[in-house]
């Protein structure tokens, strides 16, 4: 990992197209401004981690681990499907 020290108002350039500005520092909070091409996905890493956990949880409670789907589930969503038609 490359580690850089930056001051408020300074920035870092990554490749040709990405620039990260240090906009504010307040205690433990750092405000970043990010300039990047639209096709670059920028997401808080903890959101990715939560989605990853949800994927693993879904797989762990999926059909490989159980015999039947609770009938109430198909009924509940099925009723909404009828309403939607």
């Amino acid at each position, binding site marked *: 990992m490359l580690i850089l020290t930056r001051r408020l108002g300074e920035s870092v350039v990554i490749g040709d197209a990405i620039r990260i500005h240090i906009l504010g520092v307040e205690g433990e909070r750092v405000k970043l401004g990010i300039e990047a091409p639209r096709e670059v996905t920028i997401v808080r890493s903890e959101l*990715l981690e939560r989605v990853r956990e949800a*994927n693993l949880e879904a*797989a762990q409670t*999926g059909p490989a681990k159980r015999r039947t789907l609770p009938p109430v*589930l*198909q009924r509940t*969503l*099925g009723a909404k499907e009828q309403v939607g038609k």
Partner: protein
Amino acid sequence: MDEQGPRAVQGSGLPQQVTFPAGLIGCEEWQHFVLLEAEEAGPVKLLQCLDDPDVGLYVADAYLIKDDYQLEVPEEVLRSLGVQDWRDCLVLCTLTVRENPLLVTANLLGPLIINRVTGLGAQVVLSGSGYDTRYVVVSEEGGER
């Protein structure tokens, strides 16, 4: 696959085979799936991974789970799936099914976008949407929502 096993979805406009070229988030090796009816037919389908037979995910249409569901999918993602018309896309959420007590939650934060025409899919994160990965669909105490 025996007669008691899941059946492929027929004539319902769903693709039987779905490929996620980038895999699912945090599970990049899960790329090839087949979309099947669950053991009891209904709106909940089974997304069975072909790369790992132990990985099967219950999924349901996001708009059935939450009728005012809103999402913004980046143009680049739609392009990578070959989307010509947004109406060709399915928006599915994975479900987590727990029993005793019964609690079924849906991941509204990271839906699966599937182009029915090309059979290509991607999982996206709806940053800033306020959606959670554990939206309650059915709970024993609270009944249905």
